């Protein structure tokens, strides 16, 4: 392209403006790649399915206002009474509610030695109707036998040693073929457990935890002075079921029922801060693109102001409008291109530093590609009006005195 | 008052030396009205820039009120321009966003005058050019001739030793030009020296002396004094 050499010459002659623009684009691009990556990983987490039939579920916490010797009897009574409500389909008692943010996690090991670490996993306990209440799917193996599900006060140590794991956890246990995890043995707190089934998806209780696709389920009616329950309402009767459950339980003196929330609410609350971060990161991404456009626009205006006469002369000497526009756009692309290349370098360096300092995930390379492309497109949009304006410079301006 | 000895100006570009002005001597006394004439490209502007301390000469000596100006610092030259020289430009060069008062006051701002003295001087100068009543107007509200009068007031406000006028009537029609010329002559009669570049031989004839610049050479022309 014969335009290149004059463009470089002009750029070199008035370095400051283009250099500022390059610097600005480089910095903006560095942030852009990192921030947009962060935004899209948040989006990924936000939209991840929980594995639950979210529309019909709600959960609450209630106490057992009796002596501890009567806990089991009252728990059984409560479960029976609630299930008999017309608006309720099923109920389970559990130790923690998915995405509610409170629960326990365990470290799974290959054998008794704590060094043989496999993965950490969020732990749930489920009573008989746990699977049918939550509505997740077992894709391999089976649900617990009736005989395996026991009453447990606080730890799962005195229970049957059958457990279920999620598919993501199975992949850690048996990296080559996750389905082979069924029947294998893992250790938790140096006690052996046998995996009897694999759940497709069951999200752990901490919304922002990276490993929240890894859960393990123990067969148990968990009971303490206070319990968490998850209830599946009959379709369309969610509100009704919540009212019914509350008024039923409150008939007992000394009872409290709290944290009575639909699962949708739990999910929204759990993801609130992540959603906020996503909004912020997205707005930063947009602001950066706009800033870049502004910079390109300003720079193009400035050069146009300085070059009006020169452009007029070119037009007078026979340059077509198209040629003037091409010159402008090429010049812009060169500046933006240098900015993006420099930005890529900075972004890679920043990324390495960020991984060291803030333990961030590395930005995948397609972000550089798409980031670069969007900066190019944005800059084109910003430069075209000015280029058009330049191309429409009247040739007569050349003959006019300054 | 203004004395130039062997002053010359040359540029060196791409190893070629260009002599813009060949060495010349020139002396202007207090109260003189000197016209500088010559075709364009002859070195008039360079001469004016040197006389106005806007450009450094490359040879010779230039005395302003007995003071050697060669090699003075930028700061010192700025204050000489401010106190000794009043500039009048072909295109008036008033600042559009300032009103007449502020435009005339501008050079005084670069001097240690009290607000009161500045104000007195501005009003006097505007009075002198007959625009005292319009001090709050903006330049674009005036005709070209009036604008040039404001520019003259701005040049006069600091009571300079001489006025440096670069084609002061170049952008005006002949009627307005006449008015400006008579104003300049009045000012000259009151004792301010004037050095004026012009194309117009008629105007040049109204000066007390004419200096011609041609191809970088400066020559004194004898003028038939009008009585």
């Amino acid at each position, binding site marked *: 392209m014969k335009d290149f050499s004059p463009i470089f010459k002009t750029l070199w002659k008035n370095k*400051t*403006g283009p250099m*500022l*623009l390059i*610097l*600005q684009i480089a*910095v903006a691009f560095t*942030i852009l790649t990192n921030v947009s990556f962060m935004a899209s990983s948040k989006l990924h987490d936000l939209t991840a399915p929980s594995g639950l039939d979210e529309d019909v579920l709600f959960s609450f916490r209630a106490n057992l206002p009796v002596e*501890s010797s009567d806990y089991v009897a009252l728990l059984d009574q409560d479960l029976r009474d609630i299930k008999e409500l017309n608006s309720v389909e099923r109920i389970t008692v559990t*130790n923690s509610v998915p995405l509610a943010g*409170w629960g326990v996690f365990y470290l799974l090991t290959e054998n008794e030695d*704590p060094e043989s670490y496999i993965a950490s996993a969020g732990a749930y306990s489920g009573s008989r109707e746990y699977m049918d209440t939550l509505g997740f799917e077992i894709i391999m193996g089976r649900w617990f036998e009736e005989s395996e599900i026991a009453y447990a*006060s*606080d730890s799962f140590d005195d229970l049957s040693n059958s457990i279920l794991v999620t598919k993501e956890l199975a992949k850690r246990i048996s990296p080559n073929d996750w389905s082979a995890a069924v029947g294998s043995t893992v250790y938790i707190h140096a006690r052996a457990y046998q995996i009897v089934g694999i759940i497709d998806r069951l999200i752990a209780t901490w919304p922002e935890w990276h490993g929240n696709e890894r859960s393990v389920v123990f067969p148990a009616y968990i009971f*303490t*002075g*206070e*319990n968490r329950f998850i209830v599946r309402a009959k379709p369309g009767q969610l509100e009704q079921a919540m009212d019914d459950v509350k008024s039923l339980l409150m008939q007992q003196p*000394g009872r*409290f029922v*709290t944290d009575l929330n639909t699962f949708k609410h739990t999910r929204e609350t759990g993801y*609130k*801060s992540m959603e906020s971060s996503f909004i912020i990161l997205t707005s*930063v991404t947009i*602001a*950066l693109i706009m*800033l870049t456009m502004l*910079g390109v626009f*300003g*720079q193009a205006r*400035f050069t146009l*102001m300085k070059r009006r006469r020169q452009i007029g002369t070119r037009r007078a000497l026979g340059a077509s409008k198209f040629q003037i526009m091409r010159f402008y756009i090429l010049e812009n692309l060169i500046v933006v291109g240098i900015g993006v290349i420099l930005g890529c370098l900075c972004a890679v360096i920043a990324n390495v530093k*960020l991984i060291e300092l*803030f*333990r961030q995930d590395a930005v995948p390379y397609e972000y550089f590609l798409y980031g670069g492309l969007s900066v190019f497109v944005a800059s084109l949009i910003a430069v075209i009006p000015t280029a058009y304006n330049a191309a429409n410079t009247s040739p007569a301006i050349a003959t006019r005195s300054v | 008052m203004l004395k130039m000895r062997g002053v010359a100006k040359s540029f060196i570009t791409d190893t070629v030396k260009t002599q813009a002005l060949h060495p010349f001597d020139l002396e202007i006394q207090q109260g003189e009205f000197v016209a500088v004439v010559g075709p364009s490209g002859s070195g008039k*502007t360079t001469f*004016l*820039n040197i006389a*106005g301390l*806007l*450009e450094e000469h490359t040879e010779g000596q230039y005395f302003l009120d007995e003071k050697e100006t060669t090699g003075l610092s*930028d*700061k010192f030259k*700025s*204050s000489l321009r*401010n*106190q000794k020289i009043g*500039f009048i*430009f*072909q295109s*008036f*060069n*008033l*600042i559009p*966003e300032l009103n007449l008062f502020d435009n005339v006051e*501008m*050079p005084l701002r*670069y*001097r240690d005058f009290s607000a009161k003295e500045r104000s007195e001087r501005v009003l006097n100068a505007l009075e002198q050019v007959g625009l005292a009543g319009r001090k709050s107007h903006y330049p674009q509200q005036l005709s070209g001739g009036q604008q040039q009068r404001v520019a003259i007031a701005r040049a006069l406000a600091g009571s300079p030793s001489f006025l440096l006028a*670069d084609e002061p009537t170049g952008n005006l029609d002949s009627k307005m030009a006449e008015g400006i010329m008579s104003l300049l002559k009045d000012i000259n009669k009151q004792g301010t020296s004037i050095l004026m570049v012009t194309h117009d031989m008629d105007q040049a004839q109204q000066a007390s002396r004419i200096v011609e610049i041609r191809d970088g050479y400066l020559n004194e022309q004898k003028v038939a004094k009008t009585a």
Partner: protein
Amino acid sequence: MGNYYFKLAWLSFKKTPLLSLLMVGTISVGIAAAMITITVGYMMGKNPLPDKSERVAMVHLNSWDPSQPISYRKNGEPDIPNMLTYQDAMALLAADKADKHVPFVSFNTSVRAEADDVTSAQTHNIRSTSRHFFSVFGAPFIYGSTWSAEADQQGQSVIVLSKRENDRLFDGANSVGENIILGTQLYRVVGVIDDWQPTPKFYVNAFDMYTPTLPYFVPLESQIRNNFFSPTTMGWYCWGDDASSTLQEVMSSECVWIRFWVEFESEQSKQAYFQFMEDYTEEQRKVGRFLRPEPNRLMTVTEFLEEEGAVSEENKLGIVYALAFLFACLCNVMSLMMTKFHGKGGEVGLRRAVGATKQHIAVQFGCESILVGFLGGVIGLALAQLGLAALTDMYPEYHANVMTMNLTLMVSTVALAIGTSLLFGLWPIYRATRTQLSSQLKSL
């Protein structure tokens, strides 16, 4: 003279409104982004007890499982619990080696005023602690005062409540002497504290540091007497085979669940106290406890905040990004200033011709940069307030204190805008002063 230049700057600002607004807008957006993140970081990292942060310390005893550590620190070293077992907490209280002791836990129960109907009861978290909680952590009383030493020892059913709860239950009246029912227990009000939100709330874990303070306070011993136990909401860690399904079992187990702070009159006694902790550990080792190698810790407020990472990594990263964003904005402003000052070449030539020195020109354009920076700063401040208000909405789990600018931050916002705009104006100003002088000035 300054006045004159600011007038000129304002005229020049108005002359090219689009350019000026772009400059101001760009600066204000950059400044707002920077100051929002800085505000959050600054408020999160603030010293909440400036006058005695070195004299108030948290006791960490290494009573944990000899077979494996409770967790690992960021640097990979084994960590020790930052809470105590009941028996250790009681032993430290009995030894009485510090000037003030503040053990605390929390429990969850229903609360109502005695006169109110049963159905009006609300479930609340109750802070169960010692009488010194308020004086050590700086909570001010509006009515009454903290409970007596006897109340601590005998576990009397007395309660201190927050202003907000007092407004709700007693319409803001002086409620000292009134009764409140916790669960099924009658508690007598002894004091009401004013709205109080230390930022950060340094005495708990990082993830709790920006949440609101609890609204009710009772003596720890009264919780035990009345058997309040909230296994599903309190933070606690257990190891070993001890049963832990009732409060009594937890109290006799190796579970850690009590946070323990102490205050000293002088920093010297802190040394002595640490020695006492070591002696206590030695003694316990003789009976087969405290078998892990990692040393105990006596962490001052500042040390604990540092260790817990009161300002999260994500926050620091946000500040870095926002500053980079500001930098990019300023590059933009610099190039706009180049345009602006370039367009004023004629005026510069004129002013130079009539006697302005380069310094005069530099001052004139300096004032213009300052004006742009000032306007950018003021608008940036307003944007930052909007942004912070939005953040307060978006992160309800953080107390609004964290997203509030104090006067220092507000002044810094404007100062930062002016400073940076002047700094990035230096080169355009320098270039402007270099304008060629000529009598053939272009028309302005």
